């Protein structure tokens, strides 16, 4: 315990400082009530997101994409701080693995652009601003004429091996889908491997719990999307699922992949998800996603209770903030499109109402 306290006191204090600056229910209520996207940005600029958002007010270039890339910068800033504050190399590796999801997203955009014959300038606004923290440089990729060249160039990166395996499928199918899946799976496989490699028992347990819940959430919505939107078969949906789940392992994933509808899929979920999911049975996929986020947020909040000296706290903060930002982006897009959906269908109520009672309920 003493060792853990020494090891984590600094990063814990740092994380809690960052965590305390997150949006409060009162902020969410204001954001929910503002009439348009301008007001949305203007209010958000008064919060912790101010330094990243305020240039949008000054330049008057308020579009969903520039908003998204800017607001994510604040999350990458936290990644940088937490990575810097951690002393253990294996913990740092896990933070990098978590971060690699954003590098992977950028990589997918580059692949799509090159595949469609677009230039860097055409998609630059879509790329996550990862330069501050990432060591991966995408510049070299733009000089490549084909996808094969890019895969060759990425050989030595964590994405390399699986991309190499997926290349024949890309060539056979003539579409980027296998490569995109390979990038995603590479990221989550890296997260699972680095989580297993954590030295401390407590660290490993907490990290697995939080990340496992997060991956469970992703897998449910990912499989549902693959099955019911893209029309893939159960075996394909299973093979494209992400490793490292907490409640959903191969058997459970296969079972839900075989479900014929979203409603029957929810019935096949293991406990406690099954009980929680009863409330979502009549909902569409988007609302189910919100419900899942609600559940993950509960798990994330739990990490801040009890013994604070473990890696679960910084991971919980990063994932919680990521969810917060994704909700803000969704809400902002709804404001731009003047959607009349209530905020509870866009943002988990844990954010809107404050989370204490929900943590206990879950």
């Amino acid at each position: 315990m003493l060792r853990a306290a020494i090891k984590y006191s600094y990063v814990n204090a740092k994380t809690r400082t960052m965590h305390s600056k997150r949006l409060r229910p009162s902020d969410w209520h204001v954001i929910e009530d503002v009439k348009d996207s301008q007001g949305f940005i203007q209010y958000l600029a008064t919060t912790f997101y101010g330094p990243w958002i305020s240039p949008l007010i000054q330049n008057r270039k308020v579009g969903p994409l520039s908003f998204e890339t800017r607001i994510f910068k604040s999350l990458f800033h936290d990644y940088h701080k937490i990575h810097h504050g951690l002393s253990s190399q294996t913990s740092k590796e896990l933070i990098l693995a978590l971060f690699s999801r954003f590098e992977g997203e950028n990589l997918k955009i580059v692949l799509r652009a090159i595949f469609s014959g677009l230039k860097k300038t055409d998609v630059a606004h879509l790329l996550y601003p990862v330069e501050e923290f990432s060591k991966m440089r995408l510049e070299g990729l733009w000089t490549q004429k084909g996808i094969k060249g890019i895969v060759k160039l990425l050989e030595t990166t964590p994405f390399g091996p699986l991309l190499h395996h997926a290349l024949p499928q890309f060539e056979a199918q003539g579409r980027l889908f296998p490569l995109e899946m390979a990038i995603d799976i590479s990221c989550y496989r890296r997260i699972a491997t680095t989580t297993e490699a954590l030295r401390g028992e407590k660290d490993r347990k907490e990290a697995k719990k939080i990340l496992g819940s997060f991956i469970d959430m992703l897998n449910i919505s990912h499989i549902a999307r693959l099955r019911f939107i893209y029309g893939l078969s159960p075996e394909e949906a299973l093979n494209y699922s992400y490793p490292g789940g907490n409640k959903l392992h191969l058997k459970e994933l296969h079972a839900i992949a075989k479900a014929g509808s979203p409603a029957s899929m929810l019935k096949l979920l293991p406990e406690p998800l099954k009980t929680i999911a009863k409330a979502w049975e009549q909902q569409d996929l988007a609302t189910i996603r919100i419900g899942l986020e609600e559940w993950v947020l509960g798990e994330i909040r739990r990490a801040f209770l009890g013994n604070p000296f473990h890696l679960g706290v910084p991971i919980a903060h990063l994932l919680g903030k990521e969810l917060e930002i994704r909700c803000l982006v969704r809400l902002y897009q709804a404001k731009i499109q003047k959607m009349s959906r209530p905020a509870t269908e866009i943002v988990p109520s844990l954010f809107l109402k404050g989370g204490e009672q929900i943590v206990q309920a879950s």
Partner: protein
Amino acid sequence: MFRPVKLFRITIQVPGKYISQVLGILGDLKLLHLININETHLGKLGYVAGVPADLINRYDKVLSRITRLLRELDVKAPVPPLEKAPRPDRDIFLIEEQVSRIEDKVSTYILEGKKIEKDLAKKKETISRLSLLLPADVDFTRLSQLHFIHYSFGILPGENLDRLTESLSDIHHSLVKISEKKDRIVLGTFCLTEDKQVLERALRSAFFHEIEIPSGLKGKVGQVIEEMEREIPPLEEKAKVIRETERQFRQRYGPDLLLLREKAYVAKILLKAQAKFGKIDHIYFLTGWLPVDLFEQLKERIIKATNGQALVDKVDPEDIREVREGIIKIPILFNNPILIRPFEKLTSLYGTPTYQEVEPTVFLALSFVLLFGMMFGDVGHGLILFLAGLYIFRRLYKYMDYGIILMECGVSSAIFGILYGSVFGMEDLIPALWLHPMKDIDRFMMVSAGIGIGMISLGLIINLVNIIRERRFEDLLSASGLVGALLYWLLAGLAIRYVLSGPPRPVEITIAKVISGLLLAVMIVERPISVIIKRHRARGEKVKRQEGIATMVLESTIEALDSVLRFLANTVSFVRVAAFALTHAALFIGVFSIADMVSHGSGSGLYYYLTLVIGNIVIILLEGMVVSIQTIRLEYYEFFSKFFRGGGQPFQPVVSERSGR
């Protein structure tokens, strides 16, 4: 040598039907700097000729055919010089015909060669793929008899095996691990024919890479591989014959193809140059700059080629008003002997001199070689630099100029090596004809400063010549003109007098004080007075807010003092010549000391010599680079800054020696 080549501005008027002949002649002469018609009155009125797009297109096509042939035959010879420039409109037929002839002869072999290479590669690839199945001793005859079972072989990422197995749990299947290597598993997959699609979907999503098995294979995989391996030697023999034929073709047609490519390139350049021509009805107008010596030859050839229907006129640049007023610049064509010519690049790097300025390459070349030799004086090192330069000169055509510079620097180093008595740092092999830098430091530094005074004086003289040539007489009274030069020489004279025969007498000092005071006063008042005169002349004209006389006097005073300080700093800067010569000698001492230590430590004499060799290589590379940089620095900052104004236009011939490459 001290001036660029004298040029005439020429104008050619030629009927359209003869334009191609004229282009050929211009290509032959290689020394016409075309003036874009758009820059002239004619161009501004819209009488621009334009380029013959169809013909250029034909040249593009033929060029791409030639390039393909050169690539396929792997021709890598230096580009031959063109004896005669092509006549674009006529020569296209000849070039196309010749290329077609070569294609007819060569294409069949190239295609056959490609096919054999492809077959060979395919066979080898199949063997390598089938070898993966060897551990399972797969029997293709038995596999072909399976009617209700679907099977496939392939490679699977090892970490995907569990999820693949789970995804297939609802169908009858079998996954047979044949071998495992790193993160890959060679897998045999089997299922009922009715479940084929499920298996294929699962394999596809697990990134399974199927090994293609050619149809109709019989027997065990080992036997199949053996049979295939037997087919390889005859194919390789065929490929060898084809390669030999290609080699013969390369020898026979390679030079022709290179020449054709060069002709096509030059023809294309000439055609594109037509964009700079003017045209009224069917008459073409060409205008440009040509060396005076070539004018008669050009005129004679054009008149002859056009049966006297062309007009070729010349105008002396002095007679052109725009040139006199500086609106049009005369391009600079350097005119230096072969040993000086490579240094033109260094001059151009600093800037292009104007037509009236002294062309300084010869001074730069001589002083560069002298300073380099002084700083890098060693017979052995000089010899190595010379040999390196010779190698570059003979083997690397593209860098020939640098080879010449290196050879000249090598000779200079060797000469100074003799003067210093140094051979690879050993100072006891030959006697020093002049001095040992390490033993006679004071004298060496004084000589360096003396060289500095000489070079700066030369710079000041060149500047005076430039002032006179450019008729900027008011500059004579400035710090950079005659007055500044006189002040410098006065101070330098005093310094030399002090070094040679001791302190000057009081009367000499008094005279020097009076003269230098007067010169400084002239430098200070020169600008304000000239401004007052100008204002007096411009009386009555409406002018904007003007600078006060007091401010100008203050500025002039600072400028004059700054000039004096710069003269001093520039001269002292040359002491670095001695400093780097000493560094060169000191590095030798260092290398010999390390060699001694190493040989004592290891007890072997071999290491002593090895250290010497490595040390010398390091000195040549490191010190060679440093000395080059320092020499260039002295040339640019201390010497060129005294006179070089630049801003000239480089001469760009329509067709140059290397335009095709």
